[in-house]
């Protein structure tokens, strides 16, 4: 059941990407990308609900659950940010990331076959995990916006301002603003997550990934401070946001 639902969510994400791409080719906005991504979101929620019920806790105990949770939070931020900031094409760039994450879960069979049910729930540990993964969703969407900026920047710098993709990309400044806001949002949520991780440790828990999470948190904070205080060129900011997100995924290797 869970695999079928996840396959459905993945199929919907692929379809969202394909319809988005077709719309771009025809030089118009896709009406279906947002709807398909919303449907994928509900399928993901269903998957997480079932896994959560089986475990009796927040479903973040194996690699599959982490990646699905991450994809879910990515779609959540897309659904909130995309329409609000009228960032057309954000769905087109988000859908493949979601499809790849979920495709990995399905292809590599990353879900534990018989999820172990916990006897006692540590509230701080649950909140720590949920907040942290939610933060990575914001970072992931910031990285998507950064990729979009890099594509636009390249076309503008090389004097190739043409083609359906260029026409449909949002203005560079909108992408930079979204990138900065999403990173700030991610840092705030991760701060809460890390703080809860410390509380969890005080209760006797011990996690090596907290160190990695701290490094990630610190790197994002430094980036934000430098961006706000000194300023960073848009290209370097984008590369940093993409690079930091890629590196920060290593934290899940320590979970």
């Amino acid at each position, binding site marked *: 059941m869970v695999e079928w639902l996840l396959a459905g969510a993945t199929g919907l994400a692929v379809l969202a990407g394909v319809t988005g791409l077709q719309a771009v080719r025809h030089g118009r906005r896709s009406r279906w990308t947002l709807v398909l991504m919303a449907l994928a979101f509900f399928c993901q929620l269903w998957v997480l609900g079932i896994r959560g019920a089986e475990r009796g806790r927040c479903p973040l105990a194996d690699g599959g659950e982490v990646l699905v949770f991450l994809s879910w939070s990515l779609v959540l931020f897309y659904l909130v940010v995309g329409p609000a900031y009228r960032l057309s094409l954000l769905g087109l760039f988000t859908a493949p990331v979601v499809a790849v994450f979920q495709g990995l879960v399905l292809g590599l069979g990353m879900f534990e076959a018989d999820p172990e049910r916990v006897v006692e729930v540590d509230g701080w540990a649950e909140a720590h995990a949920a907040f942290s993964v939610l933060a990575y969703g914001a970072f992931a969407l910031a990285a998507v916006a950064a990729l979009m900026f890099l594509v636009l920047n390249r076309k*503008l710098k090389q*004097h190739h*301002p043409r083609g359906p993709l260029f026409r449909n990309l*949002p*203005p*560079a400044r909108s992408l930079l603003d979204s990138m900065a806001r999403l990173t700030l949002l991610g840092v705030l949520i991760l701060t809460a997550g890390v703080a809860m991780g410390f509380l969890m440790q005080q209760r006797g828990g011990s996690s090596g990934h907290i160190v990695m999470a701290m490094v990630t948190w610190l790197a994002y904070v430094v980036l934000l401070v430098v961006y706000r205080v000194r*300023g960073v060129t848009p290209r370097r900011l984008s590369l940093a946001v993409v690079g930091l997100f890629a590196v920060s995924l290593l934290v899940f290797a320590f979970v």
Partner: protein
Amino acid sequence: MMDVVCLGLNHRSAPVAVREMVSVPERKLGEATEGLCRIEGVEEGVVLSTCNRTEYYAAGRDAAVAREGLRGFMIEHGGESLGEEHLYEMESGEAIRHLCRVVSGLDSMVLGETEVFGQVKRAYRAALEAGHTSTTLNKVFQKAFGIGKKVRSATGIQEGQTSVGSVAVDLAEKIFGHLRESPVMVLGAGEMSRSTARSLLSRGAHSIFVANRSYSRAEVLARELSGKAVRYDEWQRVLTEVDVVISSTSAPHAVVRRPDVEAVRGKRRYRPLFFIDIAVPRDIDPEVGEIEEVYLYDIDALEKIAGRGRERRAEQIRVCERIITEELAKAGLLGE
């Protein structure tokens, strides 16, 4: 089906002084159509009147009689200033094709503009409500609306810019979004700077600084653009505040060099900066474009994009004409 006749004048055939003599306010379109249908030989009629054209569409049993009547009606309203040379007339398939071109924006001053579609619709509705259209013109106008929609959805007739100024403005919007939050500096008070700055103003830019070797000329242009004149030796200070620089001085060498921009990068906190260099010889050293957050477009780069836009438009016009021909042929309205 009766013969269809079109008689009219437009922005190409008549100056505004003549066009305004025969123009009909929208609220009086029904009344004008009534007058049209009193003409001998005219059994159905639609009066279309926009700022660029006034056209009578009529259906009758004898096209020649209807045409003569329409001509007399138009000249009666146009007075002495209206001459035969201002008018054009078409019949049957040619008249229907013309209507389709008008509805599709192919006959407009701004190619592919969409406003004319609504104007034709309102003109038709006024005639319909006044009871002056029947089988022939209903069929012709409905078909023209269908073709107009198809032309717009199936082609890129409205896309792309064809002039240097509009290309520059489009690029500025692609970088900064709405231009109301993007201050602009104009270096040099020549005609090119003026027209490009005006294009930016028309798209929302409102904070404009003008620097020129002659301060009095800078003041004149600044007044015209509702901007602020700055002394020529102060342009580098202003560079820290602006997002867009339009440069068109008559200097024989580069005015803005890489060190000038490097010096203000930190103060600008590395925000994107768009240079539009429309001067020959160029005002902005090409090395400036190598700075990461700088987008530099000189006159050749802009003209190249505008040229592609013009080619694309020409190609799209051919596609539009083909769609019109195919659709009219399918509906049996192509004529001989």
